[in-house]
């Protein structure tokens, strides 16, 4: 049962990696390759073996943990096989204008899909929050507890993860390690729920808020009192 589940997961990830155009071309290759690729058996096999080796590796070693990007290293082999499928299609269609039309639609469509929006647009609020924090406190280079690393990196500070680190965090805090800020992004649950509870229980004021991601920056009141920065108005929402 586990193996079946792993196999289903592999096919799902491969489909996400390869995309619908290449999958269609691969299906066409399977259907018509025997006719148009006589004498190219070695080429097809040589391209298929790296793909197969990745498939077996991830099915038996990574199982359900596999992600779509894990298959990207063998995408060139998938693409070369898909190109063979397209080759078979162009051989089957005698009208050259129709062939060029189909290829034009495929390539322009792929290009438009690729350029549809900036890369990682959904992470823009994290970049902005980090840059805001850097501008807010350019001198601080110490630890920031955060469930995402991005805003801390852009703030030029040191990231400290929230997952399962409550005991360690409290120990370091007791030893005088300065944790001046905490950045909480989205719903905090499971092993990182403690961080959300901690800022409420210890009255860490919110100094920045982004509604799009529900991203909050809280300041350690002890550090805030020392620097006099507590109470500065957040640009994107009210103080708590």
């Amino acid at each position, binding site marked *: 049962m586990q193996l079946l589940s792993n196999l289903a997961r592999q096919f799902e990830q491969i489909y996400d990696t390869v995309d619908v155009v290449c999958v269609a071309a691969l299906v066409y290759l399977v259907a018509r390759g025997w006719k148009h690729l006589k004498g190219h058996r070695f080429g097809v096999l040589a391209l298929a073996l790296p793909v197969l080796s990745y498939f077996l590796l991830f099915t038996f070693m990574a199982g359900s943990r596999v992600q779509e990007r894990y298959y990207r290293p063998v995408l060139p082999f998938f693409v070369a096989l898909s*190109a063979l499928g397209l080759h078979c299609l162009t051989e089957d269609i005698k009208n050259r204008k129709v062939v060029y039309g189909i290829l034009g639609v495929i390539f322009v469509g792929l290009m438009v899909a690729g350029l549809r929006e900036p890369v990682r647009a959904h992470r823009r609020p994290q970049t902005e929050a980090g840059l805001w924090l850097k501008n807010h406190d350019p001198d601080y280079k110490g630890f920031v507890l955060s469930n995402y690393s991005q805003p801390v990196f852009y703030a030029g500070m040191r990231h400290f993860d929230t997952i399962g680190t409550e005991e360690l965090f409290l120990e370091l805090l007791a030893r005088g390690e300065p944790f001046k800020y905490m950045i909480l992004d989205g719903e905090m649950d499971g092993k990182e729920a403690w961080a959300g509870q901690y800022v409420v229980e210890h009255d860490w004021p919110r100094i920045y808020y982004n509604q799009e991601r529900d991203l909050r920056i809280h300041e350690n009141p002890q550090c805030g009192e020392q620097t006099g920065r507590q109470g500065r108005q957040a640009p994107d929402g009210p103080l708590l």
Partner: protein
Amino acid sequence: MFSKKLAIILVVASVARLWLVFTAAGINSDAFKYALTTERMAEHGLVSGMRGDFFWPYYSVNRRLVVYPFLSSIVYRITGDSILSLRLVSAASGVALIWVLYAIAMELFKQEKIALLSAGLMAFHYEFMRASASVYREVTMALLLAFAFLTFLWTLRAKRTWPLLALLTGLVLFAAFLTRPDGAAIAVALGVTALCVAPGIAWKRRMAICLIMGLAFLALEVPYVLWLKKTSGYWLVNQWQIQRKLTEVQSTRRFLLKEDPVRHATVE
């Protein structure tokens, strides 16, 4: 192995990737680790960047594998921006891959139409195009695997230089292994291809190709494993494995509180 049509594909693909690089809005969760590693390697040298005591979770060796941040550290010396450097390495890898795939298709099928279709699909594959402008080592990994595959095909065809080409294939496979650990799977695929699939090659030469590729790989892997043992105290085949020896909390305790990680094995 070049044509005017391929040149047009390369130019369009380069422009598209550069546009995506310079309009990118954010980074993924692992990117900052590659960025800090890149900066470390540029400022303090390769080996310093291979040690892991300069960012969370302070493993004794850097869990980020070497090749991608090392290439970025070279570009960083020009740009001064680690994220931009990493994106540019991905973009350059993505464009180089188009030519490599064209060469592979020409080598295997001897038809320019198939080679151009491969290059075109690779150039405009939308997810890969976007990945080529992101901080992902998978694009560099894809280039290394495809290049190892190409040199392997040359090895099968060459009459005199095949030992050198087999050596080169082994070295490129090692570089791939130091980009993502799953690169080892391709070594198996190439071995099977050499032994069982490649047509018209004498058995002695098939065996010799596999042996040379394996020895070239081991020539770099063995000193690397010894360095890992000396630096981390563990027998590891690459840096990525350190996470299997210590949890993040254990390694952070080891570094920040100077504690023996074994005593805190039940922390997580």
